């Protein structure tokens, strides 16, 4: 299938003619799903896909899993939980490795979304790696951000501490049949009320593995967040997403290209030794390193 091949090309860093598709891809909803491993993201995504299919919407799913930094390989196992949709022509599931990105996304997620939107898929669900609680990529690049928590995982406290609850639009307490679910729900609702923002965070509970238990509530929360966004202006949001992607690419391109090049030829070490010996200040060394790297030219793509 053409789209699948184009996505592969995008992942390889090839230029594919998506740049002519405006980033404001009509009314396509890009929904990011994040949360620690074990919270039930994939099961929730599977249930959401089923719900969207019931209303005949064509859904795309991009599921990202971590690439091993040592071997460059990955086991992309999220689609096991979505197996029933493999034979549905109205569902496009693509598994991606993070391939070096640290923000929960893969190298071509944004561009792939554009391709998929052009092909008529709406919504597009992005299931992130989930090594942190909320990954920056999902916050920056997706229209609606959903955080999935499960009781007894202890990451609630972390999430609140890091102020992450306020960064998302919907929090789902999944596996809500497990002990601790009610307590978690109360704590979340309390935290969210304290936030006092107009863009209130919606908290819902679900048991994604168990039929339609709570899935309609999740959908309603997502729709609600979308309506609010559509009203207040998607353009700004999406512009910010492009800015994020630009900065992200430049930063990693710089680190992987010019900066790596001066590292490889010993410049970095020499400057470090000079600081270590007390001959140069760290600020001067940093400036010198920057200039040396700039001299190398090309960003690594």
């Amino acid at each position, binding site marked *: 299938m053409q789209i699948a091949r184009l996505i592969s090309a995008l992942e390889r860093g090839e230029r594919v003619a998506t740049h002519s598709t405006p980033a404001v891809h009509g009314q396509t909803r890009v929904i990011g799903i994040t949360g620690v491993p074990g919270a039930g993201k994939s099961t929730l995504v599977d249930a959401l896909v089923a719900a969207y299919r019931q209303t005949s919407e064509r859904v795309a799913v991009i599921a990202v899993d971590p690439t091993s930094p040592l071997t*460059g*390989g990955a086991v992309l196992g999220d689609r*096991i939980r979505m*197996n029933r949709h*493999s034979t549905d022509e109205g569902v496009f599931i693509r*598994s991606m490795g993070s391939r070096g990105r640290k923000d929960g996304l893969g190298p071509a997620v944004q561009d792939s979304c554009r391709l998929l939107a052009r092909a008529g898929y709406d919504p597009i669900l992005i299931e992130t790696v989930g090594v942190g609680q909320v990954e920056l990529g999902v916050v920056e690049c997706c229209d609606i951000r959903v955080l999935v928590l499960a009781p007894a995982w202890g990451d609630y406290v972390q999430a609140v501490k890091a102020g992450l609850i306020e960064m998302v639009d919907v929090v789902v307490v999944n596996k809500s049949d497990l002990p601790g679910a009610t307590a978690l729900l109360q704590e979340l609702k309390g935290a969210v009320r304290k936030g006092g923002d107009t863009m209130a965070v919606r908290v819902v509970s679900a048991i994604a593995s168990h039929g339609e238990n709570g899935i309609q509530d999740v959908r309603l929360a997502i729709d609600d967040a979308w309506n609010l966004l559509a009203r207040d202006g998607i353009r700004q949001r999406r512009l910010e997403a492009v800015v994020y992607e630009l900065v992200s690419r430049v930063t990693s391109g710089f680190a992987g290209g010019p900066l790596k090049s001066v590292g490889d030829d010993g410049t970095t070490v020499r400057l470090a030794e000079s600081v270590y010996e007390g001959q140069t200040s760290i600020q001067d060394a940093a400036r010198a390193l920057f200039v040396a790297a700039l001299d190398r030219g090309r960003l690594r793509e």
Partner: protein
Amino acid sequence: MNTTPIRVVLGKVGLDMHDIGSKVVARGLREAGMEVIYLGPFQTADSVVGAATTEDADVVAVSNISGEYATYVPEIVSKLRDRDLHPIVIVGGLVPDKDRQGLIDLGVDGVFGQGSTIDSIVEFIRGAVAKRSAARKA
């Protein structure tokens, strides 16, 4: 990592639940730098081909120890052809010697029976994928 990972769609067909081997292979392929799209058990020809399509698979790997491969693999090969997809197709698990040639004749590229090592599977995949890209460039 500079090279693009090889993408392998790996699944078990039919009702065969003995998935230890296929999981170990999945991990082994990951250690070898490949992206393994692990489908798990209960796959049909349609679900395997559906996945191979959207995942733009370089390799389709079918695991089976119960003999059901005999009904599913021919279907998989022909459905891939119908969609004009040409991944490397390999079959692993319990395949008696006398069935091997039949599978190759059908269009399967490699058969890995009892006792196959992960290294041999990795080597085969790398070789087959390299050969295919060279052929495409030509």
